[in-house]
């Protein structure tokens, strides 16, 4: 009976150990990425198989792009607030609303151009097949496709 209990317990312990081994080794790469700062760049490195030199260049490009992106966010927020204010003051499209909507469209275009430029810059640091995949993925998921 003692031997039977030992075998039953051993089976369970071995099963749990096997589970932990495969689970933790399978998710190690992603857990490391989450520890990095910023984790999304570590994802970029693993997803597009960048070597260290390519990754360093991509990080530099990303960091250089961030202030422009922040400026653009501020302009979008400001313009949206202005449009909301104008829309709430009236019940028909006024020349002022029309003007602001034109500015919003212009801003969107500017943003799309800035984003596409950044994507081209990043993709130039990647091997050609990965660059193609990166551009397709980003085009599909960002303001470029909307």
């Amino acid at each position: 009976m003692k031997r039977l209990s030992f075998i039953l317990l051993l089976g369970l312990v071995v099963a749990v150990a096997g589970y932990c081994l495969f689970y933790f080794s399978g998710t190690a790469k992603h857990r490391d990425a989450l520890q990095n700062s910023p984790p999304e760049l570590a994802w970029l490195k693993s997803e597009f198989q960048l070597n260290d030199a390519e990754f360093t260049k991509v990080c530099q490009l990303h960091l250089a792009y961030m202030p422009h992106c922040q400026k653009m966010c501020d302009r979008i927020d400001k313009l949206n607030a202005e449009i909301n204010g104008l829309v709430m003051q009236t019940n028909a499209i006024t020349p002022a609303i029309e003007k602001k909507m034109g500015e919003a469209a212009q801003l969107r275009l500017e943003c799309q151009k800035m984003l596409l430029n950044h994507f081209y810059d990043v993709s130039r640091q990647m091997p050609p097949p990965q660059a193609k995949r990166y551009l397709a993925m980003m085009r599909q998921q960002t303001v470029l496709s909307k």
Partner: protein
Amino acid sequence: MKNNQQNDDEALRASLREWKENSSLPPRFQEQVWQKIERAEAEKNTRWNFLKSIETLLPRPALAVSYVVVLLAVGMGAGMWQSERKSAKMDSTLERLYVQSVDPYQAPRH
């Protein structure tokens, strides 16, 4: 209190003595009852035999090793499946974070 209970018991016994059952039992009633009992006992025996056979067979080295190996394989398979699911989920979260970090129209607003 005790007298009352005795009276009730007496009354119940008298009623039971007077009670006559007129309806007849269904055909082969007794046989069916015995069959039911036999089936229940056979079921109980099967379960008991199964547990007994585990108790006698599992300590044999070949079966013990097979049992441990099968559980190890199950554990590893489950771990691999779960890690793949988790990795796919983390991939999609990180991808979304990257897109949000570069696209001003998707950046989280504070």
